[in-house]
């Protein structure tokens, strides 16, 4: 283990200890740095298209082995470790582990029939090599061979304990949680010093020790909505995450000790929610119906990732459209619509997203490991594309040749791994 990695691993812990000790004295608020952010002017309707080879330097299709045990529906969440792809499948409510070649490794069998036992969130702790599956009534921890380590029943929270909604580990026993807007005032017995903060820092046993991004009383009544990977996203860094604040098009970078407004996205008037959409109490309880009526207005920035010079995100409106998943190059300012990127020989004329399927609309680009971005395509979609390629005499690579030979339309989805070009 290199000194750097030791430092990297110890630093958060040190901060945690530091914060914890201060916490004894009262509320620890991490100051939000809003002084130096980048304004991005994005007009989705003028996003460009292109061929796959223009945008990506590498496209890999990783068929995920289909066996009676490993059969699953869709890649709803994806965590990438050194050895495994860890997939949460909403359809079967299972967590599946495949090795980097797509070979099935192990599975945490879901209980999709019971809402109480459903796994609703899966978080991977890379340091301890654990998978934490949260359900309504309990929280279970597994190792990477899917052996159950422990199960904790959910009960009333202790003082300073927080409810984890969307969180990421930044060390073996420290995490960052992005809370939802909660209308919990001081008179409530559930009120903790960290209740009114969007970002909470906590130990693995949910004890909050610091917080940032306080929200006002009026904001506590926000009916915040998002979909896909939201609001906290990981982009390949162990200690740095993006947080997308609802209705503000603001992206914050969250580290174990800082919160910084990094990007503010400005959209054309036609695609923007009203400027006072967050603060105006006239919208209280009516925001969702407003958005359903104004389907061209973008209300959330989801699946926000950064790969070198490129930002990737989904500009979400009530109506899915072809310009909602975008790639923005920070050097050139060029904007590319992901759905308009055309297959070419770099992808063996196979698509990088599946049109007319719920998969991409529901999950989008599911993960980013700092080098690659990931999505998936159903076998039905792969075989349809192969049928269209019949006349083109495509020579597929070995894994794909094997896949098309041995698989059927009803097999597992295929993972798509994409490497963006740095200069676009």
């Amino acid at each position, binding site marked *: 283990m290199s000194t750097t990695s030791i430092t990297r691993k110890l630093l958060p812990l040190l901060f945690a200890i530091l914060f914890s000790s201060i916490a004894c004295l009262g509320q620890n608020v991490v100051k939000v740095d809003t002084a130096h952010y980048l304004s991005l002017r994005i007009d989705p309707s003028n996003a460009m298209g292109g061929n796959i080879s223009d945008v990506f330097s590498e496209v890999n299709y990783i068929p995920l082995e289909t066996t009676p045990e490993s059969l699953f529906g869709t890649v709803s969440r994806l965590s990438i470790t050194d050895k495994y792809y860890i997939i949460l499948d909403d359809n079967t409510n299972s967590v599946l582990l495949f090795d980097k070649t797509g070979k099935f490794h192990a599975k945490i069998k879901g209980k999709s029939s019971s809402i109480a036992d459903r796994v609703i969130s899966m978080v991977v702790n890379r340091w301890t090599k654990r998978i934490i599956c949260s359900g*309504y009534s309990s929280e279970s921890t597994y190792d990477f061979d899917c052996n159950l380590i422990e199960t904790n029943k959910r009960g009333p929270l202790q003082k300073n304990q927080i409810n984890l909604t969307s969180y990421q580990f930044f060390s073996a026993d420290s995490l960052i949680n992005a809370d939802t807007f909660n209308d919990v005032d001081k008179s409530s017995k559930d009120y903790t010093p960290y209740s009114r903060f969007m970002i909470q820092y906590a130990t693995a046993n949910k004890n909050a020790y610091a917080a940032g991004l306080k929200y006002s009383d009026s904001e506590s009544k926000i009916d915040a909505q998002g979909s896909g990977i939201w609001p906290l996203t990981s982009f390949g860094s162990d200690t740095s995450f993006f947080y997308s604040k609802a209705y503000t098009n603001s992206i914050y970078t969250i580290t174990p000790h800082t919160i910084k407004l990094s990007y503010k996205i400005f959209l054309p008037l036609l695609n923007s929610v009203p400027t006072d959409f967050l603060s105006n109490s006239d919208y209280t309880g009516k925001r969702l119906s407003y958005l359903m009526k104004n389907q061209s207005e973008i209300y959330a920035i989801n699946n926000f990732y950064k790969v070198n010079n490129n930002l990737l995100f989904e500009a979400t409106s009530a109506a899915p459209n072809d310009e909602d998943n975008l790639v923005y190059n920070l050097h050139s300012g060029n904007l590319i619509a992901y759905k308009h990127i055309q297959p070419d020989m770099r992808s063996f004329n196979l698509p990088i997203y599946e049109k007319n399927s*719920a998969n991409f609309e*529901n999950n989008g680009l599911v993960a980013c490991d700092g080098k690659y971005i990931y999505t998936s395509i159903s076998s039905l979609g792969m075989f349809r594309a192969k049928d269209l390629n019949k006349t083109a005499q495509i020579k597929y690579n070995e894994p794909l040749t094997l896949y098309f030979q041995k698989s059927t339309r009803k097999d597992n989805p295929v993972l798509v791994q994409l490497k963006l070009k740095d200069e676009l």
Partner: protein
Amino acid sequence: MIYIIFYFAILICIDCKLNCFVKKSILLLVFIAFSTCAVAQKKDTSAVGTVVGLVRDSLHNYNLASATISIYKTGEELVKYQLSNNYGRFEFKEIPVGIRLEIVVSKLGYGPLKKNLVIPRTSNSINLDTLNLTKLNILLNEVKISAPPPPMQMHGDTLEFNAAAFKLDTNAVAGDFLRKLPGVTVWTDGLITVNGKKINKLLVEGKEFFSTDSKIALQNIAKNAIQKVQVYQNKSDSDPINPATEMNIVLKKDKKDGYFGKIGGGYGSDKHFAADGMISYFSPRTQLSVVGASNNVNKTAGDVATLISYNSFKGEGILNDYHSDFTRQGLNIFKAFGLSLQHDFNKDLAARPEDKRSNLLKADYFLSDLSNHILEKSQSIITLGQEKISRNNSIDETSSNLGSHYSGKYLKEFEHSAFTAEFLIDHHSNNNQSVQQMKSMTNESDESSSNSKKNVSYTADDLHGDLKFSTSRYYDIIKKDFRSVNLTIYYQFDLFKSTQNQLNLESFNASDTSLNKYINRKYLNNVNASTHVLKTDFFSLTSLLRKPPALFSIDFKNTFTYSNRREIADVADQALLSTYYVPNNYLTNNSKYQVKNEIGGLNFSKTGRNFLDSRYDKNWAFNFFAGNQFYSQNNVSQKSFQYIDRHYYYFVPNISFRYNDNEYGDFTKNYTVVYNTNVVYPNMLQIAPLVDDANFYFIDAGNINLKPSYNHELSFLYNYDNSKAKNPVLNNLKATISFVDRNITDSTFYDNLGRSVHYFINGAPLKAATFYDYFSKAIKLDQNQIQTSVSLSTRYAQYNSNINQVNYSTFNSSLSTTLQVSYSYKSLLTISIAESYYGNRSIQKGISDYTYYNWRTTGGVAFALPKGLFFNSRVDFNNSRSAQLSNIYYTIWNADIGWRFLKGANGEIKFSALDLLHQNKNIFYTINGNIITNGSTNVLQQYFLLTLAYYPRKFGLSKSNSKKL
């Protein structure tokens, strides 16, 4: 509290997933739309060419999927069209070569592109390479190109067909337009499917058009008034997994109001006449219709909507329901008048139909008068073991029925609740004079006869009301808590009042003259009755507990019914040798009958779902209603034997299991198994009636010991559709077995004069089984369409009944099957052939074995030129056989020939020849246990009719005003 908040977070999560599922279903529709590409409009021998190309937004450097590419011949004749595929490519085959064509490319948000082309005869193909479209916000005014609207396009998640792109004759209606659309099948029974998926609702401007009967819209709205037809899935459907598909007709901006109607009359042979009138007005808010009819050719209707539908502009043809009903008994004169009003109070008229909350008032008035004269003769054979009774019966009956019917409905939907109020006022009066003669003969040649003359006048008023209020539980995202409950409260009342005046002159003569009787009896019966029903259903009680979801979802359901019937009967007999009437103390009565019926209990339900994206969606639902029925009946009367006070309790469970398997792109199957129980309680007429001795041959006695029968029924249902656009297949199957414990059955005693005394007894259990299957398939080849359907229905029942105090087992079986094939070419020609068979066998072990078969072959042809001549003819061959009675053959042949004239084909002259072969005989067979009857009645027979009609219609009343503006 935190505990609870986390639970809500999960539910939000689930809710989000639910939304995703909706999204998925919608996208599935989109996928289907893509698979409908390239639909041929015209066959052409030179159509051997291929056109390929790529649609692109070059400025933004991407290819355009789902752009509409249309190829026209000169003169704007549409040859073919399709949507570009996911990569922006298109490929047309079978395009005419060597002639000048125009290709138009369009996509929402882009300016259209037009290009001329000629496919070289040498290569028979042309590659147009890249066709560039430019976004509308970039397109400069000077380069804007006008182009015809694309025939088909995707607008978000809605599939749209633009009417202007489809050239039909100027008098075409909405139905003609729909038949032209790819993937759309208009079935012979009025059902519309899009890519095999049933259209649950056809709306016009987001509302029902005069009625739920889609025919009114399909056969009246001028195609030229239509801007587009939208097909979409209802997002607010309670079944988000398999939401209902709806179709909405959007009218052109200047055609949002209008009127259509018909005024016509005809006169013919044997004083036959038929007159119809209808005028209907519609605007974005209001629909008003006035309709009337009068005829003596057996064309009747039961409500306003049916009458509006009968007077449709394109209502003619072999599939039209408004034909003379040759099976109707007697000679009938029908007069009717109706009024229908619908008003939409909704502020947001422009909202999409699925987003709209109803605020609608609907009212109907219908007045009908049916005069009827029946002459019926019948012969019955009653088998009593070795003995037989032959009975001849003749009836001469004249009646007039006047009915007026008001109904109203108001529907208001709120965000989380809905309120419905309905009322119905019915006034009915009937005058009936009948003369009946009966003659009965037994083996020993005992003979008896009766003469009966009845004069009945009857009036009844009925006021019926329904009030329904429902609320639904929802999650308040601000308060992060659930609000409201899932509750339905339903109250229904019915107030009924009737008066019957009756005079009976009855005489009975027998070979033993001491048995002769003469009765002259007057009746005055007054009935006052009321029924109140209160239904209270609380759904998902478990969700109120705020605990982890239980194993089952539990509902509480309760229905309480109270009915009260007060009857005063004044009966008097003419005193012997006198003109005075003296009260009949036995039949004169004052009674009050009350029933309290409560069915309540807990309902346990559980659902499950197994789905894999892009592969299948299998879901199931289990339901168990632990119903408890408390039933009490109480009768107070002047007759002591009619004092009844009975109380019952029964456990009446209901269990169902439904399984739905949707294999994407392959098929959808539904399986349902239902076990149902119910109790049939004997009524006062079955328990302790006042026996009227004026009915010489049929005396209905009571049985004070009669007990309720308990029915068990187990049903299996299966539905299949293949979700295919071109050749849709539908199959519906239902099989039922039932078991009735303490079956209420007949006990009849016949005397040697053929007189019978009936009463009901609890017999051995009834065992019955039924099977029904309906299979249909449509094949679409360009403008030709073939629809085939096969239906099979069979029933078997086994029960016991008593005859002359001997218990007999009865076995009854029947089978009916119909095969129908219809062929249509555009809207010009329809040919239909159907063969059906019906067989019935009834065995009463030891005394009778009756069989009856009927074969029926029908064929029809309808031909209609757009402007001018139309012709339709229908032949119906009937062949009835029975081992016990003589065989019967007859054929009914009808034909109409007519001419549509004036500019909009508004004028019509028609000559109709009905029952050309003069063979219509209304001959009937009935088998009822040990009695087989055959008979005939007077019926409508051959007639010729010349009819003149004018169809006033205009779509777009404010057109001139809007032009001025």
